[in-house]
């Protein structure tokens, strides 16, 4: 009995994708659609779980991917963002096309994306853990995995690593910067809570994601309240890796803080989650011979809000297309595959780079600076800043706080 082979898995594919999150599933779908033979593997027994994410996703990313969200995949519709100053008093509400989106139910969302990949013709193996890469003549030629307890070597022309923040596969492929460093990573802890008050002081925040800044609450990161329904929310924090003691400490401190604690009076958790959030630059190389890395594994995560789903899906889409074409032409060298890196940079880098710069500046602002700034900016100001047009806001801030000239000049010279 033990020797009966696990059905449905062959020994060779055009493309193997490791990790069935958003990046992996979109890559699998796009590659399979183009006729490549694709196997997507995941160590988990159920795709989508466990969740380790705030679950926010901008509407523009959904539209760009041409995917249709099932009603069950949406926990809450979001019309804007509320940014709260460290004093927990001053705030700005931003409602623009950019801030429209969803708080997802990732368990449903991820599984639906994987189903789409399966429908497009990709094979999927769950309970299948990659533990090493097969290298041959300097190129990656497949994956060593354990599937339902059986060790298997599965060969492929191209391996796409979509294994998330741990990014083990990219590191095994020699990409040393795929490790998360304390300096360039935020570490997060989050509760999914019920009985959260999403209304406060006569205002309704149930269609807003709320973002709290301040060294007291989230040094080198931020605290969030993302609605999951009329009375429930993901409430979490990400802090810089060099901060002490740890994320859970800051989340509990926030939930007990005057100014917000009345909103959590009766709150009870139904889940706790955590994780590493790479918030520095993406990894230097996206490709090697026969190998590509996508999504959070490639540190393709927004440096300001730490969101990764949108960037991951676009990377998966581009990588899936490039891989399918490379496999069809039997051209899987780094130079050919690097078209993925070029197209991703063309699409994302100008905005990404500005956000890296903005993050560096934000980190230098004191709580007093933030209290003064957030109290004085309008929704349009923030919209412009997030879009990379720094000048009008910098000028406005400098009028109030001229002492920030040195810190903010980085943005003016950009």
């Amino acid at each position: 009995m033990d020797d009966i082979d696990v059905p449905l898995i062959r020994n060779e594919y055009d493309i193997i994708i490791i990790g069935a999150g958003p990046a992996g599933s979109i890559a699998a779908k796009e590659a399979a659609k183009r006729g490549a033979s694709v196997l997507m593997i995941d160590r988990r027994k159920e795709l989508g779980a466990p969740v380790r994410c705030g679950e926010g996703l901008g509407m523009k990313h959904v539209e760009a991917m041409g995917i249709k969200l099932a009603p069950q995949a949406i926990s809450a519709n979001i019309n804007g963002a509320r940014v709260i100053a460290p004093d927990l008093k001053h705030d700005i509400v931003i409602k623009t096309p950019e801030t429209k989106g969803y708080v997802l139910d990732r368990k449903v969302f991820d599984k639906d994306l994987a189903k789409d990949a399966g429908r497009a013709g990709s094979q999927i193996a769950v309970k299948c853990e990659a533990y090493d890469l097969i290298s041959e003549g300097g190129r990656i030629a497949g994956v060593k995995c354990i599937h339902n307890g059986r060790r298997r070597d599965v060969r492929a022309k191209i391996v796409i690593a979509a294994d998330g923040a741990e990014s083990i596969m990219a590191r095994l492929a020699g990409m040393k910067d795929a490790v998360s460093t304390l300096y360039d990573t935020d570490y997060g802890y989050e509760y999914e809570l019920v009985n959260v008050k999403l209304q406060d002081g006569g205002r309704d925040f149930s269609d807003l994601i709320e973002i709290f800044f301040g060294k007291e609450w989230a040094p080198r990161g931020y605290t969030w309240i993302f609605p999951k329904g009329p009375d429930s929310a993901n409430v979490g924090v990400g802090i810089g890796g060099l901060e002490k003691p740890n994320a859970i400490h800051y989340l509990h401190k926030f939930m007990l803080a005057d100014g917000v604690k009345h909103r959590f009076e009766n709150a009870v958790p139904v889940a706790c989650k955590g994780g590493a959030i790479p918030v520095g630059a993406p990894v230097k190389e996206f490709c090697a011979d026969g190998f590509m890395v996508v999504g959070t594994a490639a540190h393709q995560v927004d440096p300001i809000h730490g969101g990764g789903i949108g960037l991951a899906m676009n990377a998966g889409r581009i990588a899936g297309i490039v891989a399918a074409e490379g496999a069809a032409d039997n051209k899987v060298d780094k130079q050919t595959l690097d078209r993925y890196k070029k197209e991703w940079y063309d699409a994302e880098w100008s905005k990404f780079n500005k956000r890296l710069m903005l993050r560096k500046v934000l980190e230098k602002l004191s709580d007093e600076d933030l209290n003064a700034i957030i109290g004085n900016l309008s929704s349009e100001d923030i919209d412009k800043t997030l879009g990379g047009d720094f000048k009008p806001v910098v000028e406005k801030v400098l009028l109030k706080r001229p002492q920030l000239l040195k810190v903010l000049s980085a943005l003016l010279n950009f």
Partner: protein
Amino acid sequence: MAVKIDHSKCIYCGACVATCPYLALRLNEVYVEVFPDKCVECGLCTKACPTGCMSLPEKK
């Protein structure tokens, strides 16, 4: 010796795995596993851990 994990606090999020430069940690489906032969007790994972569940063995 190697880093110690308090499994009563660990939420198996993998933050330590992402941060370990030595690939001495692994997140399997149920828990975080330490490979003692790879761990050099550098302590990076103890700083990364969001719940504070990791600790270095006491120096003798």
